[in-house]
Each structure stands twice: as structure tokens, then as C-alpha cells.
């Protein structure tokens, strides 16, 4: 039970990595199938996202306070694949007539999508790092634990504030992509405003909490992050409705799932909100409460 407690934050991070990986897997499978796997490299995110998903689920169930080398390796590969993917997508946009134009940003390879894989990898790595430090924590006094956590020799991914920063940037980027796509869709449904208004607030508060370390700020951030997490679920519902509104509805799924709003996209918000919440937990753990101790 104590082990469960100790690795709670790490497993929470594995969980958010799992949500992101699932989103990437489903989204890239659908969109790259639509792109007829024209470039062989388009199979890569499917493979790596599947591995990341599997590693993350196993990680979320694994209460042992030990870094898992294979999982850590998979996460590193995922982050690297995401980075390479960003390059490929930028290349795809650039090679089209018009180059970096609104048309190509709307209809070529989505510029920000592979970033979700980078984030899944980073969150996963931070989960494994958290376990690693958890194991060192055994046998040491609370005081040395805190000293170690705040010392500069710790890997940056172990820091709650760094993690909060990554989550905040990820949320802002995902909101920017939603803004681009929902602008393309002319915000025809008022609900389309939600993902471009709630997550940016959450990202700003989370970023501010990361920078200032203020408890007050993190309380507000928590609130908005929970709302963002819910929004990710609700978004899938709205997108299911969006598909049904296309001509032929769900009976014409082979057209509308590809052409309608992407079903796997909104859960990215949930994944990042969960990692933001985990980051705030870590920050609380890492900041000694003065006066109480």
C-alpha cells in the first residue's frame, strides 16, 4: 500500500502518457490511412504509439518504485519519433504549392500533431524518472529527500515545475491546433469555442504556477485542469455528433469518420490535463510546507 502511495504520481504520469499515446495511435492510424501511407515513414507513429500505449498501461499498473529500462527506452524513442514527425509534417506543408499558406496549414499534414507523441514520450520518461528517484528515497530521511529533489543534480524531468511547464506548453499547443481547425470549421457550433478558451486558461494558470510556485495559483490551475480533462471527454461526444451531422451520418462512416471532426483529437486535452495535475502534485510534494513541518 505504501508503495502504491509512493508511486502514485509516477503512475498518474504513465496514465496521461497512455491517454496521449491512444490519441496519437487512433489519430495517426485514421489520418495516415487517409493519406494512403504514401510515405513508408507514415507507419512509424502507429508502431511507436502502440508500444508507448502498452508501456504506459503496464506502467500505470506497476507500483514498483523502480525505473523500467524498456519502458524508458520506448518513451525516449516516442519523443524522438515525434520530433522527426514534426520535421516530416513541416516538409509536407513546405513542398506543396503555396508553401506555408493558410490553405496548406488547414489541409496538409497537421503541423502540431506529432508534438503529441513528443509529449507522450516526455511524460512517460518523467514517470520513470519519478520512480527512479522514489527508489533512492527509500531509507533516506525526509530532509535529505527534499534536499536531493531541489538539488541541481536531479534530472530536469523529475521536477514538478518543469513537468508543469511541459504540460502547459502542450496544452497551449493543442489549443492552438484546435483553434486552427475550428476556425477552418467557422466555429459553426458554439461549443467549438470551448477548447480554445478553457485549455488556454488552464495552460496559463499552470504555467504561472510553474514559474511562481504559488500555492494559490496551483489551486486555481487544478480547477481549470479538471475542467480541461472533462472537456477532452466531452469533445469526443461532440465530434461523434459532428460525424452524424455530415451527409449520410454514421451509416456513411467510411466517408464521415475521415472527413468529419477527428474523434481521437480531443482526448489529448485530457492526457495533458492529467499530466498537469500530476505535475502540481509533484510540486506540492517537492515544496516543504513551512510551519507545518
Amino acid at each position, binding site marked *: 500500500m505504501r508503495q502504491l502511495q509512493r508511486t502514485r504520481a509516477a503512475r498518474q504520469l504513465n496514465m496521461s502518457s497512455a491517454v496521449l499515446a491512444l490519441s496519437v495511435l487512433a489519430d495517426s492510424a485514421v489520418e495516415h490511412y*487517409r*493519406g*494512403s501511407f504514401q510515405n513508408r515513414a507514415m507507419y512509424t507513429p502507429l508502431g511507436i504509439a502502440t508500444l508507448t500505449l502498452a508501456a504506459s498501461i503496464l506502467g500505470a499498473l506497476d507500483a514498483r518504485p523502480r525505473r523500467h529500462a524498456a519502458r524508458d527506452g520506448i518513451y525516449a524513442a516516442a519523443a524522438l519519433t515525434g520530433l522527426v514527425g514534426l520535421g516530416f509534417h513541416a516538409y509536407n506543408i513546405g513542398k506543396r504549392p503555396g508553401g506555408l499558406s493558410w490553405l496548406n496549414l488547414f489541409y496538409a499534414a497537421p503541423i502540431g500533431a506529432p508534438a503529441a507523441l513528443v509529449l507522450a514520450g516526455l511524460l512517460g520518461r518523467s514517470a520513470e524518472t519519478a520512480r527512479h528517484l522514489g527508489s533512492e528515497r527509500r531509507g533516506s530521511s525526509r530532509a535529505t529527500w527534499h534536499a536531493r529533489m531541489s538539488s541541481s543534480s536531479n534530472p530536469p524531468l523529475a521536477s514538478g515545475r518543469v513537468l508543469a511547464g511541459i504540460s502547459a506548453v502542450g496544452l497551449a499547443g493543442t489549443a492552438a491546433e484546435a483553434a486552427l481547425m475550428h476556425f477552418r470549421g467557422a466555429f459553426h457550433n458554439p461549443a467549438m469555442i470551448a477548447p480554445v478558451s478553457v485549455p488556454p486558461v488552464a495552460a496559463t494558470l499552470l504555467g504561472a504556477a510553474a514559474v511562481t510556485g504559488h500555492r494559490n495559483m496551483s489551486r486555481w490551475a487544478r480547477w481549470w485542469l479538471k475542467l480541461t480533462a472533462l472537456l477532452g471527454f466531452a469533445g469526443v461526444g461532440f465530434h461523434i455528433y459532428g460525424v452524424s451531422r455530415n451527409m*449520410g451520418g454514421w451509416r*456513411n*462512416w*467510411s*466517408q464521415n469518420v*475521415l*472527413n468529419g471532426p477527428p474523434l481521437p483529437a480531443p482526448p489529448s486535452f485530457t492526457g495533458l490535463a492529467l499530466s498537469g495535475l500530476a505535475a502540481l502534485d509533484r510540486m506540492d510534494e517537492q515544496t516543504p510546507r513551512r510551519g507545518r513541518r
Partner: protein
Amino acid sequence: MSPQRAPQASGPAAQSHTGRPAVSPRYPGYDVLAKRDSPSWNAQTRRVIDQRLAVGPDTHHFFCDEEWPTVRAVCDRVIPQAQDKQGRVPIAALLDEQLRRSPTEGYRDARLPPMTEAWKQALRALDVESLNSHGHRFHELDAVRQDALLRRVQLGDVHDAAWEGLPAKIFFEDRVLHDITRLYYGHPTAWNEIGFGGPAAPRGYVRMDFDRRDPWEASEARPGREEQARKENARVG
């Protein structure tokens, strides 16, 4: 004026059931009607296409028996089709059907009479012009003479009083070319020839980039990939 059309393919590429639209050599094995019962078409689309296919080559209610051979001859010269072509498009009968069912498009060139009157008057005038020049009605002329006379209509070089109030040149552009080509390319046989998928209702297309193909689209037999195209066309449904 009369486009020279490639001779209809014979041999394996043109295999098709009698009465079914012909199959094009450029899109081997492609039959747009394979999409009929697939998610590509819905009841409304099926109804419209079925109506179009049900029009027999000699069905005419709008044109009288006098006008009928003339309009058929005009259609045959503007878009010639081999006599033994499978799934031959009954252009004249489709025109008759259209003029009978919906006698107006909702707009017209104000210099022309309404569509129905324009066609009747033009066919009459064409026969008069033909009798004046050759002593025979239009449909009795050989193809070369028919083409020459149609060319005069196209240039506006016809002067009989029968053309009164009907500018021949505008009629040729707005009605002859417009109606005949539109009706021809509204028929599944023409769709098979050009690899068109028919109405995108309800299923449209999702691979919009250049040179990409949805699995329910016709596959073109570019040199060296004829067999590949045939296989893909067998699965367009």
C-alpha cells in the same frame, strides 16, 4: 464541331453485360453501377440513376414523329457513338425526357426563345435549310453533309425565314452543345469512359490531394499498371 471520338474498345476491356453501361479501356473493369448498393449511393441517388437508365433509345413524348429522326441525327453528329456500342447513351431520348419533365432550366439567354420552343423551331428550320440546300431532310443526308450544315448553324450562316427570332449561332452554343454534351455526360456509360464516380451522394471523397485515389474511385490504367487498375476497379463498390 463534331468531336472525333476514339473507337469504342473491343476485347477484354469492353466486357460488360448487355444493357449495362460499357466499360472503358482506360478504366478497365470499372463499372460505376457497382457503387449502386454500396454506401456511396443512397435511395435518392439510386432513384435518379434508375430513371435515367430506364429511358429507351426510341422513347419520345415531347418531340413528334416528324421531329424525332432530325433530333436523333443531330445528337449522333455532335457526339457520334458506334452502333454496336454497349450501353449506348440515348441522348435524343434523354433530351426528350428532359424537355418534357422540366421544360425550363430557370434561366436562359434572353436572345433565344424558351428551351422547348427553341428546339422545336430549330429542328424545323434545320430541315428547311437542308431541303433548300440538298433537297432532302437533315436525317437523310450523309454524315459529311450533316456536319457541313451543322457547321453553318454554328457560324450563324443560315438565312431561311424559318430561323426568324432564333439566332442560329447562339442556339448552337447554348442548346446544341450545352444540352447534348450535358446529357451524354450525365449517363453512367460516359462516367465509365472518363472514370467518373457518379453522384457523390451521400459518400463523397476524402483523399483530396493531387493524384490520390479513394478506394471507391475509378483506377486509371496508366501504362504498366493495367492489371493493378483492373483489380482496383473490381473493388470500387
